[in-house]
């Protein structure tokens, strides 16, 4: 495929040049020229008011027969014989895709003494479980897992292979993809499938989330994707779900495994700074006193976040300056910013308004903070925060 300029239709307006996220288009005289950086994302097609751009198919054919590939597979990542939470999400999504194209949901799992895991996977809806049980597979290593899964893919030919975009999934995925000679889409946030041609539409953020791209892998199989944890809906648990279990042969030659895990060290990340935090709960003058930060801390730790504050609370001596968010403090852009008892002075807003989701809790419904908030709660924070803590307990 490539993008072609239809000279007769082009008016030389250069809208396409400006629309290109990859700066691949340049004007050559009055006509745009598509450069080497083009990824065929199609942004230019959308903006062209004259239909002067088209996509043409000129790529070479792959030599595999894609009709031999069936089933949706999920890689069931385990650590210390516990399934990673993302596996359940992948199975939920895998089930949905499998039902759409009318095929089975397969799960592939590697480890040592994993009987309990295969049972669990069957309850989460696996139709077929391919399992490899060997001491070399107890803990993940690239060489061992890549070999076992590559051989299984070769033999059983799945249509789709999904992995969690964990550190391990993002190590294993590319390794298998290269061995299989197929493509891989990283860190997907949305998957759709075309029931006709079984084309998997894999949507993922790019350019730091400024752009979304839908990726397809048309001529190679399996269609592989790693999926961002925490996005997909979890699979339902059903004790009575039946499934077939197929053991995978495992044998390694001497020296074949070139990585050895010496030790696993568990460590909680050291206390994150404001700039790195995913969640920030901030308090302001509305707290009424320094002890108000106890409640803020409680909510922050419940959400795995850190404590911020407005300048006013710092100036009042309720909390050290290092917590201050705003123009004269730290500029932050977490996933969740909860402003409690902060009216939203300009210097505070300047430091936090690029947060992905802003929640404001304030007594005064005219407080400027509500202008930037995604969700606002007008009320007494001493009542609202405990209620939120309650609500959070309810969902777990």
């Amino acid at each position: 495929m490539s993008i072609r300029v239809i000279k007769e239709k082009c008016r030389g307006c250069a809208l396409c040049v400006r629309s290109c996220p990859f700066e691949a288009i340049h004007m050559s005289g009055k006509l745009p020229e598509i450069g080497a950086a083009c990824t065929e994302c199609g942004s230019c097609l959308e903006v062209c008011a004259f239909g002067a751009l088209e996509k043409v198919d000129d790529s070479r054919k792959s030599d595999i027969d894609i009709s031999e590939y069936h089933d949706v597979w999920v890689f069931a990542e385990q650590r210390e014989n516990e399934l990673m939470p993302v596996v359940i999400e992948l199975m939920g999504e895998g089930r949905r895709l499998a039902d759409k194209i009318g095929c089975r949901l397969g799960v592939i799992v590697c480890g040592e003494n994993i009987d309990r895991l295969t049972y669990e996977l069957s309850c989460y809806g696996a139709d077929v479980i391919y399992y490899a049980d060997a001491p070399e597979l107890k803990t993940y290593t690239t060489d061992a897992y890549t070999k076992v899964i590559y051989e299984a893919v070769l033999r059983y030919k799945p249509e789709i292979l999904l992995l969690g975009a964990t550190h391990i999934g993002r190590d294993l995925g590319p390794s298998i993809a290269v061995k299989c000679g197929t493509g891989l889409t990283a860190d997907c946030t949305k998957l759709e499938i075309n029931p006709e041609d079984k084309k998997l539409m894999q949507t993922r953020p790019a350019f730091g989330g400024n752009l979304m791209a839908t990726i397809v892998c048309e001529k190679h199989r399996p269609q592989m994707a790693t999926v961002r944890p925490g996005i997909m809906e979890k699979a339902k648990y059903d004790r009575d779900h039946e499934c077939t279990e197929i053991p995978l042969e495992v044998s390694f030659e001497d020296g074949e495994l070139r990585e050895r895990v010496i030790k696993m060290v568990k460590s909680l990340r050291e206390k994150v700074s404001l700039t790195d935090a995913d969640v920030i709960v901030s308090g302001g003058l509305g707290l009424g006193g320094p002890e108000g930060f106890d409640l803020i801390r409680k909510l922050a730790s419940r959400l795995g976040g850190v404590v911020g504050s407005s300048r006013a609370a710092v100036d009042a001596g309720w909390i050290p300056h290092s917590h201050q968010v705003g123009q004269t403090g730290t500029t932050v852009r977490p996933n969740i910013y909860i402003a409690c008892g902060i009216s939203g002075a300009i210097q505070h807003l300047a430091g936090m308004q690029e947060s992905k989701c802003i929640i404001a809790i304030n007594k005064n419904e005219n407080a400027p903070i509500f202008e930037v908030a995604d969700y606002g709660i007008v009320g007494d924070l001493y009542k609202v925060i405990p209620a939120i803590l309650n609500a959070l307990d309810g969902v777990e």
Partner: protein
Amino acid sequence: MRIIVCVKQVPDTNEIKIDPLTGTLMRDGVPSILNPDDANALEAALRIKDEYPGTTVDVLSMGPAQACYALRECLAMGADNAYLLSSRAFGGADTCSTSTTLAYGVRKLGDFDFIFTGRQAIDGDTAQVGPQLAQRLGLPIATYVQNIREVKEKTVIVERQLEDGYQILEVNRPCLLTAVKEWNEPRYMTVIGIENAYRKEIPVWDEKDIGIDVQDCGLNASPTKVFRSFTPPPKGKGEILSGTVSEMAQSLVAKLMEKHIL
């Protein structure tokens, strides 16, 4: 020792804004920078060079001719040589195709003890090219490396970062390591380093130079294609919740769950 560091020049995604009217990316004036994780990979290589005099650090990149700028930055930080793979034929490559081209480039560079690269590039955030390159070169790999504990005669002992801690991993040499930002703090260039970087020649190699078939590189050899791209819908006006305190709290949590924010 010889260390090859693979780097990429990327647009500084923090500087990219969306045009509120057209909803398109505004790339005007967005600077191109050395990919941040790659700077950590280079720093790790330079520290080995500091420790083992006689070590050579060579930097390899694939990209348009302008990517020489990022390579000069690497030289100014202390790399010995830099090489650029650049050709129209390499354009539009996905990660799979990129790793093939890089593998040809590495082979042309000859023997080495390590390949270092950043965990992922900020324009694509895929983290795939490192592991793919290792597979193509038949090298053992450790991704998400946050520290080298010991360089041994035939192996290296590294710390590989996981979500809840790290593995201590022994990997045969030669091998490929991908660096996370926690590994180190990249050094600054120096003024004299910049002066010297501009006195050096950066060889630019195309498909003929590295001996790759045009069918095996660029868009031609990319199994994945961008089907369409779009800007995420803009943030709508916020919502003021209503009801009793407990109803508002419940509905807030429910909304956050629904949007997968929690």
